[in-house]
């Protein structure tokens, strides 16, 4: 049977992708960010999973206002890297895992989560920046990736509770897949940031650190945090953090298993407009 071996959490700031693509990672501004991911790259090199389920949000790339699915799963064999307006990032295409993705879709819908199934999906920085942070600049990504897109662009995003419960359903779906796959689930976006209006530039380190503490130790309590608290305390775009709860919900302890081990924790301000947070639970 397949199983979830670890969960990885990280911000997906587009400027981080630009810094990697333009070879700026050693500049004084960027160095602390990338230093914070060195232990993670070492960790993952020793345990490349068979598949990653990557929870992210599309930023007006594949989903315009014509269609706004709250939860969408990419079931294709391959996902192209999108041109977001600056030209596509020079990174490899993302290879999917149609068999596991189809299994998750069918299982999760039968658990009352009405996922949108997407067979054609170009992926943007929300998905590719986490891959670059963890894997650097390989010629091809080391394993298949199943994109799981969450709407956090048009309010309201799904609630934290709903995200955690979806993660639990995905965990059950993975556990019922016949092949013995080692699966990681990644939650991306955040941490505190606001990209619009006169309040742009908001950062709330206290909120972010509390969020990390609770994500590790008290996910059920964290899931009760209402939207207004994210918006007010973590900025209008800080609401992306609900996506971390999807990944957290897929970990065994939430379903009565043993507590995960914190392999790495990192926090840095700023990357462009954003607080960078990162966590690995195994």
């Amino acid at each position: 049977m397949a199983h979830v071996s670890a969960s990885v959490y990280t911000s997906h700031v587009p400027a981080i992708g630009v810094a990697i693509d333009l070879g700026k990672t050693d500049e004084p501004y960027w160095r602390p960010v990338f230093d914070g991911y060195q232990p993670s790259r070492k960790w993952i090199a020793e345990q490349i999973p068979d598949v990653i389920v990557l929870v992210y949000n599309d930023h007006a790339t594949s989903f315009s206002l014509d269609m706004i699915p709250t939860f969408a799963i990419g079931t294709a064999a391959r996902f192209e890297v999108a041109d977001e307006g600056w030209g596509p990032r020079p990174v490899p295409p993302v290879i999917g895992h149609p068999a596991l993705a189809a299994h998750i879709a069918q299982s999760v819908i039968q658990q009352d989560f009405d996922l949108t199934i997407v067979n054609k999906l170009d992926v943007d920085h929300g998905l590719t920046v986490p891959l670059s942070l963890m894997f650097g600049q390989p010629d091809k990504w080391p394993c298949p990736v199943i994109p799981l897109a969450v709407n956090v662009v048009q309010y309201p995003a799904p609630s934290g509770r709903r995200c955690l419960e979806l993660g639990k359903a995905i965990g059950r779906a993975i556990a019922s897949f016949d092949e013995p796959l080692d699966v990681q689930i990644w939650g991306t976006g955040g941490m505190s940031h606001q990209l619009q209006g006169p309040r742009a530039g908001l950062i709330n380190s206290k909120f972010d650190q509390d969020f990390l503490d609770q994500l590790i130790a008290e996910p059920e309590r964290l899931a009760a945090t209402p939207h207004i608290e994210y918006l007010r305390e973590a900025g209008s775009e800080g609401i992306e953090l609900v996506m971390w709860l999807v990944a957290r919900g897929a970990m065994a302890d939430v379903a009565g298993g043993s507590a995960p081990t914190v392999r790495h924790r990192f926090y840095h301000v700023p990357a462009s407009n954003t607080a960078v947070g990162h966590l690995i639970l195994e």
Partner: protein
Amino acid sequence: MPLDKPYLDVPGTTIFDADQSRKGYWLNQFCMSLMGADNRLRFKADERPYLDEWAMTEEQKLAVLSRDMNRMISLGGNIYFLAKIGATDGLSFQQMAGSMTGMSEDDYRQMMIGGGRPIDGNRYTHEWETAGAGDDDDNDAGADR
């Protein structure tokens, strides 16, 4: 019964909810068209006729022409869509975000390096009213509704 919108009380912030999305549909869809390189060229060559191809309001068109990001947001624009205009102009996300704060590009960058805009004093609209910040009414959530 009207929907509860507690986020109208967050200063200097417009939440892109269903009402904003409805108002901004064509503005945002125009922005999506800038994801194609050919359209970016055509828009930059002559902006006004390009805008006239879209069912946007005159106000929205004027806000785009003057690159008034706060105005575009208040008229239903969403930052991730408006970012396509910034990309067409060769601006970074930091330049775009900073342009909405009334700060210079360098001051904004320095604020971010210094830890960002603090949360204290920036949670509720009444905190801005008493502090005299957020001087442009247009920028407040709901001012245009």
